[in-house]
């Protein structure tokens, strides 16, 4: 089954990222521009790794700017 933006949002909520911020996130805009900071992004990255059983390489993680980027990346890794 394909991972969707809603799945990534669910991971963020589970990991304890501020629900007010998460509920307003646009899928195609940079997370950094929507109120998430250098403290939130690593938590999202590690929670995503754990949830989907994947490893985020440094070179890849730096390119994950939006929720859509996460969706594409996770689906590729799980394919």
């Amino acid at each position: 089954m394909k991972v969707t933006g809603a799945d990534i949002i669910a991971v963020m909520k589970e990991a304890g990222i501020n629900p007010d911020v998460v509920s307003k996130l646009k899928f195609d805009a940079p997370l950094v521009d929507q109120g998430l900071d250098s403290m939130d992004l690593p938590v999202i990255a590690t929670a995503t790794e754990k949830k989907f059983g994947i490893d985020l390489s440094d070179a890849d993680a730096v390119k994950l700017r939006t929720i859509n980027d996460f969706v594409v990346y996770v689906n590729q890794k799980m394919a």
Partner: protein
Amino acid sequence: MQEIYNVACELLDRHVLARGDKIAVYYQEQRISYAELQEQVNRFGNILKELDVPPGERILIALPDCPECVYAFLGSMKYGAWPVLVSPLLSESAYAFILNDSEASVVFSTNGSQAAQARTEHLRHLLCVDNESFRDRRASVAADLDPYPSREDDIAFMLYSSGSTGNPKGVPHRHGDLPFTADVYGRQVLKVAEEDICFSASKLFFAYGLGNSISFPFRAGAGVVLSAGKSTAADVFKIISSYRPTLFFGVPTLYNLMLKTLNETHSLDSLRLCASAGEALPAATYHSWKELTGLEIIDGIGSTEALHIFISNRPGEVRPGTSGYLLPPYEARIVGDDGLPVPSGEPGHLLIRGKSTAPFYWNRPDKTAETMLADGWLRTGDIYVEDGGCYSYQGRADDMFKVDALWVSPIKVEEVLREHPAVLECALTWRKLEGLVKPLAHVVLNPGFQEDMRLFRDLRDHVLRKLPEYMCPVQIVFCTELPKTDTGKIQRFRLRNGKDRGN
């Protein structure tokens, strides 16, 4: 006998004669010329004189990056007192500790700040720079001030550096140290010149920010943009496009964040060079930034004890993922645990020697003896490999690590974690994400508790209530036991075994 040498005069006086009208400081709508800057520095010094503060007295400055912070810092030194520059965002108890430790008798801060609440035995004068009465006082004192007849090797100011256990340590520096670092790194590597405008995302109370925003621009007669707020990626882009600085100083985490939001609407065309310090810059960050902006990031290593960068890459010759080459006249040595030099290419403890290294820790003879070695060598606590003159960071000699360019002590975080009823024992190490170090906790649960995301959130919330966010684990690995020595001491290094330690 050394000649009279006062760092405030070294940095300002010749510019007032040569370029008094030139803008030295850009702050919000204010444009402050060198002549005005010198006058305000004199007025702040004269306020101390009026209060009859004895020379050598410690003056705590807990202000955001703003002109008054610069006036208070340089004015105190010109008057002969020792400014102690600290973050404006500490807790009241942290200020109380630093006030007691430094025995400061004067505080420069703002109305209602935590620093303004702290009361200690030595404190005589609280000066809130945003108060009406302070403004009146500032206007009423003389605009001229004879510099205190200090010598180049006399103590001029102090910074505080966080400790692995317990409390921060005072790091005193001499009058000659700021100009020395400006010449060795600012002039030699960055080639800061009169036409430059510097902008540092790292604040003045960090040794890195102090050089970037005071000694480098003022040594060269250049300008500096000061920004009081938090340096978010959006704010940094906005400041760069509005004030058009030529040199930008950031830390790796900020560059990574900026890369995640950079687009064609962001204008960076005023910049000629970017610099990074605080933690090792990942090679991937260097390459992405270069690809998207065309700009190099010059990474280097420095410390509060050395005051600024002593090993650095050079523009046009960057070796991504390394700290670069030694900056003369600093000297470096890599030694084994026995103190003897190790062969090139092998890891060892990095020692450095140079004029800007702090002579001692304030009131800490134990730490001084460990760090400030015989013959002027300073133990950095970092493990490095030198190969062909190029230095690569390998990690720390102790269990400390840096997150967002700030020190994290595992012991402090473990103490807080252990207070949680679910935690039987724990160890804090780190993992890398996007090439940067982030805290990772290993936790053994008490009977009756189960590993799940709710507990993960609960443990993080517990840490966040007691410690700054950068210390909070981004990941928690639940395990059944922790590796220990025969005497029961947790071996954090074994938890890190098999994972990348280096850059």
